[in-house]
């Protein structure tokens, strides 16, 4: 690859990881700009991982104040409350994150995720959002896709001890190792809107139940105009009603979405820190893969549930529309 060589300082700091992904990948990382919205525990993990890895810059967007709840799984928030005064959670996290790697430019931007303009998005190579509504997710993903520049889009959320990652790399080419040779591969991704529009009945039977359950909760929050995670067990009857409607419309059995799973997700306002570490680790790695174009990325959903310990990749794309 063209471009300047890594400095001595970079080679020393990144020695162990250059041995994993090579100097080319490290150079690409150092030129990548990442936008991150929604400073929850899982996002704190993602931020840590990509700042350590040595991306060019990280821009944080979250105007909400620091609350008791936000302390739960977010280790970027120090205990000293005087630091929160009149500041957004993004600003507080930004200060901690800067220390992790002086070679990465970390900043906090004012603003609301749902109103991010394409002019702003265009400055980035990777956009990651967490804790936003169904419509915001669709809107940001849609804006990223409209730009001529290819932007990698991720959404990530943890509820209770379950986590979901969505990946849209649009049209992605990468190299991957196969036995002893490196091969080129090319992947076509659907947008979030396209993916969730894939009829449920055509999906493979053994697909993760978390996929359906998350769609039900997401739809519930959207119709009730709740913010993500603002649910409780009292919502269960209405959620079960919604499940019935959706399952009937999609022609799948309601048993695909167990009550117990929906209960867990409704209660799961707080993230479970070990799951944040796992989901944040997997997503951090995905971002590195996407930027470096090395290694086959997840297409296009990833699930982890601490209850069974499996970390599963699900490909949810319409076989008819894929090229």
């Amino acid at each position, binding site marked *: 690859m063209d471009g300047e060589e890594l400095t001595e300082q970079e080679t020393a700091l990144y020695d162990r990881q250059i041995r994993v992904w090579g100097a080319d990948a490290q150079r690409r990382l150092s030129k990548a700009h990442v936008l991150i919205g929604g400073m929850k525990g899982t996002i704190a993990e993602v931020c840590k991982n990509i700042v350590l890895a040595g991306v060019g810059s990280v821009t944080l967007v979250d105007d909400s104040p620091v609350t008791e709840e936000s302390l739960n799984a977010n280790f970027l928030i120090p205990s000293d409350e005087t630091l929160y005064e009149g500041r957004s959670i993004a600003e507080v996290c930004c200060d901690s994150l800067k220390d992790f790697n002086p070679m990465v430019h970390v900043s906090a931007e004012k603003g609301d995720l749902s109103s991010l303009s394409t002019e702003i998005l265009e400055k980035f190579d990777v956009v990651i959002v967490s804790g936003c509504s169904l419509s915001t997710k669709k809107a940001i993903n849609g804006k990223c896709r409209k730009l001529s520049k290819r932007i990698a889009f991720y959404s990530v959320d943890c509820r209770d001890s379950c986590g979901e990652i969505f990946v849209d790399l649009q049209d992605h080419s990468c190299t991957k190792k196969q036995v002893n040779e490196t091969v080129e591969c090319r992947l076509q991704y659907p947008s979030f809107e396209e993916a969730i529009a894939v009829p449920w009945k055509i999906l493979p039977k053994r697909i993760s139940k978390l996929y359906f359950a998350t769609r039900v909760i997401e739809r519930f929050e959207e119709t009730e105009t709740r913010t993500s995670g603002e649910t409780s067990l009292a919502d269960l009857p209405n959620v079960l009603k919604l499940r019935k409607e959706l399952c009937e419309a999609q022609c799948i059995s309601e048993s695909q979405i167990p009550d117990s799973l929906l209960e867990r997700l409704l209660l799961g306002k707080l993230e479970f820190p070990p*799951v944040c570490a796992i989901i944040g680790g997997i997503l951090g*790695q995905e971002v590195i893969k996407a930027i470096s174009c090395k290694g086959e990325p997840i297409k296009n959903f990833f699930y982890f549930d601490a209850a069974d310990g499996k970390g599963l990749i699900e490909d949810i794309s319409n076989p008819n529309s894929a090229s």
Partner: protein
Amino acid sequence: MASQQQLDAIKGAKVLMVGAGGIGCELLKTLALSGFQDIHIIDMDTIEVSNLNRQFLFRQSHVGQSKAKVARDAVLKFRPHINITAHHDNIKSSDFDVDFFKKFDVVLNGLDNLDARRHVNRIRLAAGVPLVESGTTGFLGQVAVHVKDRTECYECYPKPAPKSYPVCTITSTPSKFVHCIVWAKDLLFAKLFGDKNQENDLNVRSSDGASSSEHTDDIFELRNDEDIDCYGRRIYDHVFGYNIELALSNDETWKNRTRPKPIYSSDVLSNNQQNGNLDKSCSSSDVALVSTMATLGLKNPQEVWNLAENSKVLLEALKLFFMKRQKEIGSLTFDKDDQLAVEFVTAAANIRAASFGIPLHSLFEAKGIAGNIVHAVATTNAVVAGLIVIEAIKLLNKDLENVRMTFCNEHPKRKMLLMPVEPFEPNKTCFVCSKTPLTLEVNAPHTKFRDFIEKVVRAKLGMNLPTVMKGHFLLYEDGNDLDEDERQKYEANLEKVLSKLPSPVIGGTSIVVEDLNQTLSCEINIKQREEFDEEKEPEGMVLIGWLQAPTDTENKASVQNGESTSGAGTDQVMPLEIAEDEEAEVNAVSKKRNFSEISNSSVSHPLTGNDKTSKNKEVILEDEGDDLIVLDHLNSEMAKKKRLV
């Protein structure tokens, strides 16, 4: 989020963490966030620059400080009201005995070497405390749960021995770059800068016995009034020129091999060529910063130097050692963080490689091979730490039905990047957790007691302070509290052959080997055997009764220590090295080597199957709704492990 019952168990738990490195930093953070209130953390290491890319609790300003203490302080910044006790100490210290371990509800390992893992395994077994073991290499990771009498212990199945090479391959017939590295590091570097009393195979005695060791030994000494430049060239010409000529005189060796080309310094460098600008480096008084790359103006460690550049680096490095680091000569051992040592070894290995027609390598690559640097990234460590905490919570809730061993895969297997597997049951023949007697096949009248202690007791059985008894007769004891007569008596025993010991150890007898510190005792039955295969059984002793690890001399499917260090090449090394940043030694097999060094070295966990190796197959058990996977093991004996029902 965790249930109330889980939260209570977490709050009341006392946790011992061993290791504050790559996994340790992530683990301490996740434990603290998860609500743990009482955590002890032990690590003897101090912080280095190459840790900072993943050990996120550490900063540049902490370099040189205790990992355990800095990690504690960093976590208290976001969780100020919990108790974290940091021990900047060796886990093998006698302070951390069985009584110490008994105070804890669970032990969590984030270690980087086999020796310490075995030590912890033994003490926690004696203390009856469950253990969560972990390891990562690049994108691969593994978490295992060990509960006494219920699941396998860490040592139920021996780990493959570190990659080793026959002496003659290293001294006379290298065919790969790694052979040249071993030669440069273990022979040439050790000869010139290491302990002069250590035996060293650098000067191959040719078949006609042309060089006697008395004569050749002097060659490596700087003579009185000898100019340092002349000395360097003399050494250069001796090892790369004369020694190769000598080896070439043995036609038998080269019948089916490419003949090496002797290289003399005058072939490569003009006689009066000025080597670098020493004055530039003279300004630096910091010994750690002395570097030939700096004085020769070589900037990029990833660039492959040509023969002339390597020759200049070698001569310059030699000179710098004598001019700047004179005091250390005679006591140096190779250290991957010693820039000058790495430069010297890179250059020497490359010149030797050039002579034998082997492709040359960059300093970056050579450093990886010589230091056996394990690839490490933050993300795998974060994932593994999360998995450890999930298993630890199950253990605290006595939820033993649901504990799992989990593999982090680089490529999904059956859609899974994180793959849980049921733990295996204990191995009934394990000498550690089942106290099963072992049998040693040995030629008693020809085997020195010292070899038995070093190669069997220390290296194979992993004992640090062993006591050897035959009946009530003490044959050997190690420890600091011995008086001088005892020490002398045991020293004398070490020099005797087994059958000539004060109480003879011969076929049909039995001895007991103990390590009181580890509270481990092992009975060994002796079986007389005269013949051993030099290639397969180079130690001249075979320990049986406990499943043997796959031998690792030429098995390509197994660990490739140091051979896959470039780029993203980790995925063909599937038998997972359960080691984070492990500095394993690449050792030449030499009967004269220091075996405690080898016992410290590489580990690889046998519990992983490789989907690219035909030897391994997956056994897939489809249970209703919830499927679990059991992997077959590297060798058929390992496959005897059963699922816990």
